[in-house]
């Protein structure tokens, strides 16, 4: 298990953040959960900028759970920039959103999302989903190789 790897949750709704945390805990997923409250913060974290200056950016999260409707930088823009940067382009990104809009789904996949999950209202199902997600990305999925600096 990628125990040392963090899970990056990009979500502005604190209720959702807490519920996600709760779901992960209940799923006995002990990895550190890093929460970015908006798109800018998420990008700062990933690229080691702003308040995250100096962070080792080669240490990618095991998976980033990305909400689409975010303050400052919208979720799809975050995804676009993640994919555009050599350092982060291999980062597994799971779009986790309430939106069921076809356009969002299409854009998410077009920009290279690894998965698209709609948050159900029913928390039981939501929790199940989060747990399966964690299990999948932390246990089953083989993490991408590190991008060598300068390459």
């Amino acid at each position, binding site marked *: 298990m990628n125990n040392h790897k963090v899970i990056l949750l990009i979500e502005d*709704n604190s*209720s*959702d953040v807490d*519920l996600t945390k*709760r779901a992960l805990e209940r799923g006995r997923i002990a990895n550190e959960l890093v929460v970015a409250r908006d798109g800018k913060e998420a990008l700062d974290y990933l690229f080691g900028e702003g308040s995250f200056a100096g962070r080792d950016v080669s240490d990618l999260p095991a998976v980033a759970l990305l909400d*689409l*409707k975010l303050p400052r930088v919208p979720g799809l823009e975050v995804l676009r920039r993640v994919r555009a940067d050599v350092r982060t382009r291999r980062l597994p990104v799971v779009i986790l*959103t*309430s*939106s*069921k*809009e076809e356009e969002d789904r299409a854009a998410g996949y077009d920009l290279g999302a690894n998965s698209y999950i709609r*948050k*159900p*209202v*029913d*928390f*039981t199902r*939501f*929790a199940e989903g989060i747990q399966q997600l964690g299990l999948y990305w932390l246990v089953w999925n083989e993490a991408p190789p590190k991008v060598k600096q300068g390459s």
Partner: protein
Amino acid sequence: VAFSTPIGFIKRFATAQYAYSVLAVAAATGLRLALDPVLGDFFPYLLFVAAVLGVARLGGRGPALAATGLSSLSVMYFFLQPRFSFALSTPLAAVSLGLFAAIGIAISLIVAPAGETRAAQVERKDGDPADAPLLGRIAVIAGAALALGVLASLLSNGFKRTVDAEHWVDHTYQVLNAAAAVRSSLEAAETSQRGYLLTGSDQYLQAYDSAAASEGRARASLRLLTADNHVQQGRLDEFHPLVRARLNLLASGVELRKRQGAAAAADLVRHGSGKELMDRLRAILDAVDGEERRLLNSRTMAASAADTRTRWILGLGTGSLVILLMLAGISIEHHIQQRARSEKILARQARLIDLSHDAIITADGDRAITGWNSGAEEVYGFTEEEAIGRIMHELLHTRSAIPAGEMDGILQREGRWAGELAHTRHDGRQIVVESRQVLQRDGAGCPAGILEINRDITERKQAEDNLRLSEEKFAKAFALTPAGMAISRLRDGLFLEVNETWQAMTGYTREEAIGRTSADLQIWQTPEDRARGAREIQEKGSFSGWEETLLTRSRQPLATLLSGAIMTLAGEEVVVSAWLDIGARKRAEEGARRINEKLTGILESLADGFVACDRDWRYTYVNASAEKLLGRKREELLGGDMRALFPEAAPFFARYEHAIAQKVSMTFEDYYAPLKMWVEVSVHPSADGMSQFFRNVTQRKQAEEALLASRAKLEAALSSMSDAVFISDAEGRFVHLNDAFATFHRFRSKEECAMTLAEYPTILDVFLADGTVAGLDMWAVNRALRGEAATNVEYTLRRKDTGESWVGSYSFAPIRDRESRIVGSVVVGRDITDRKRADEKIRQLNAELEQRVRERTAELESANKELEAFAYSVSHDLRAPLRGIDGWSLALMEDYCGACDNLGGRGRGYLERVRSETQRMGRLIDDLLQLSRITRTHMHRDAVDLSLAAESIAARLRDAHPERRLEFAIRPGLAAFGDVRLLEVALTNLLDNAVKFTASRAQARIEFETAEWKGKPAFVLRDNGVGFDMAYAGTLFGAFQRLHSESEFPGTGIGLATVQRVVHRHGGRIWANAEPDRGAAFYFTLGPEK
């Protein structure tokens, strides 16, 4: 003479072989001399026999015989006693020499048959049986020679022994005689002494002396003869003193008598020892005699034995010799016969050679002629005597295509050469011979001569040349003849050769034709034609002057005059055929005939009357129309004088005469009263009379009048038109314009109008619809004159003088004559200035309207955008708090309901209610979003297989409700034209509903098909569910409208609203038919009803 050539040929090669004889004998002699110290006198012939054999083998019979002779001489001289002399010491030597000679001769005859040389034998090559038995024969002869040698040796030995034995017998006799002589001499001496003693006669004394002397001689002889016998010598030694003593006694007696007389002598005799001595002497002599007689006896026997043996050997030897000689004789006879036979063959061959007309010549290595047959005499005119010994090429002045050196080279290398040579005959005539030359080799394989067989082919060459020449001539003629020529094989009809003309005529190339038949090429129109032709040539051997229409390569008919004959070319019967294209002639004939026919046809078919007459105005030709026009039959008119026949036509005749006088053709119209018609006559005078065309133009005259009347009507009509109408000629001159023209162009009157187009640019400015100036070439008249036709072309016109401007709508077209040439134009112009103004007004209004629509649309679009943003927010933002409520409710339940029960069962119940309401809210939001999305999304219409869509939804529903027994009956192939996603949403909602409302049924049956509803086709989805009361059907498709309680059938009440929205967006209609508990049926159409 006949034999001279082959025998001379053989002789030539044979003479050299005699050298072998000398060499071989010399070698044998040398070798034998060298071996002499070892062999001595022992049988000297052996090496010579070998020499003779060798020579016989190599050199043949003659040299072998020579070798035998030479060998005999050599042996006689060198090896027989006495040596180095030709004398023979013994008959034995003579016999052995004779034997040797006989053997040599036998070898010569047997081993070397018929004098053939080894070279000749080599020439005979393999397959000759002579060689194998020859070795046998050599073995036999060698054996015989050896046997004879042994025999001779034994014989010689035997003879020698016999002679020795006889010698010893003789010798013994001599001894005996000598002994007897001694005895008798002694006795004679004694007797004579006694006589003297008695008588004292000197007679006795003399006898006594002689006896004493002879005794001495006899005794010496005896001594000598018995020198080889020491026993006898011993006896003689003993005898000698005794004899001396006795003789001394006798001599003393004689002395006594002489000196003392007879008495003393007698006394001496009486008392003396004479008698005793004598006895002893006699005893010794007797012993000698006895010894000798014994020896004689044994020696006689030995001599007799040797003699007997020698006789045996001699007998046997003679017998063997006789047998050998007999065998040799038989063999010789056999070989003589063989030789005779081969000579006969040779003679026959020679005769054949002589019979041959070919020159058969042999030459030696230096090309000197050694053989010359009668053929050669005939070919070259030189006799054999003249030719033999001459150098071949000098005699015949040989010339050849290749250098002589090269020819010799080939001959040396390959052993033979063949080719053509040019020779000069004795009479100086040049001849060409076909020469075959074979190199002859001697025994050692070295070139020894040449056999040349030459055939005179001068005549053949001449014939060939002639043939070639004639062939060339033929070929040239064949190629150059202007007629088509073809050679084809008689037996199968294959073309062997065709010439250029033939190729040009038929269109086939030589390559295409050769090796094919005319049938292959389908030159004949039908196979029957060809078969007929083939039959004829087979029967008659030739044909000429056939007219046939054949077919060319491009299947064009080809009128051909065919001639041909059977010939023999290179042993093959061929048909040589000449093809003459008579198409041109035929065509010319045909053309003339056709022209004539056509002319007649034309004249006859003319609607105009046509007559021809001679100088005396007599009709020579009257066509059918003329008959009709004149109302007279041709027969009545022909030959008749027209002036007499038609006296009323005098005014016409006057004009004819005028035309004849002027020698010009002329045309005029006149009224011919007797027939009540206008006639147009065209008269053409010619050298032999004149011809006239005439037609009834009465109708035209009437038409012209009618036309004038109608023109007036037309003009009246035109002048009453409000549109300007003007007609121009090709040069733009106005030939007609109506009253409206003047008004249109702002002239005060029609008379004021300019009558040519060219004047108008000074009067008017003309602009195109886009406001640019229209050049004169763009004006309607000119466009029409260029062939353009158009309607409603707008021009804006402006008077240059007043500046007044107006808009004209023009229609124009060219006027064409019968040949379609443009001869003028028609232009119609209408003043549309007022209409244009009205149009402009309308356009402005429309533009304003459009602007307003655009603005409104933009507003709507922005509203729509807002709505979309709103919907998006709703979907996202409304759901988040719901999820929170649900989540935290669950958290509360999980964290607190299990541990403490202060909330208790009821509390849990409440929380579950909170959650279920929350989730209902979530569904409500989703459904509302879907409804709004249905409204918002763009439609992409396409062909949609509704059955397929329904099947896949049904499959999904079955999976979602595994506990239900769902029976879907979906008619396959239900097709619609619409947006597949929207239609799927609609079908999903309908099917969902159907499944939902059949939940109480043990077996749900849901059908999707088409049905007719009030005479119109519609899709229908039926179920056997709970149905509903039609009284409430009006609210069925409204949003949030439900006919069943939420607890009974949970739902948002938006599903059917969504379906209706989809159907409406497709321009269709949806309605339902149901009864409570009897199922429901939803009908819908897609697209407007017709």
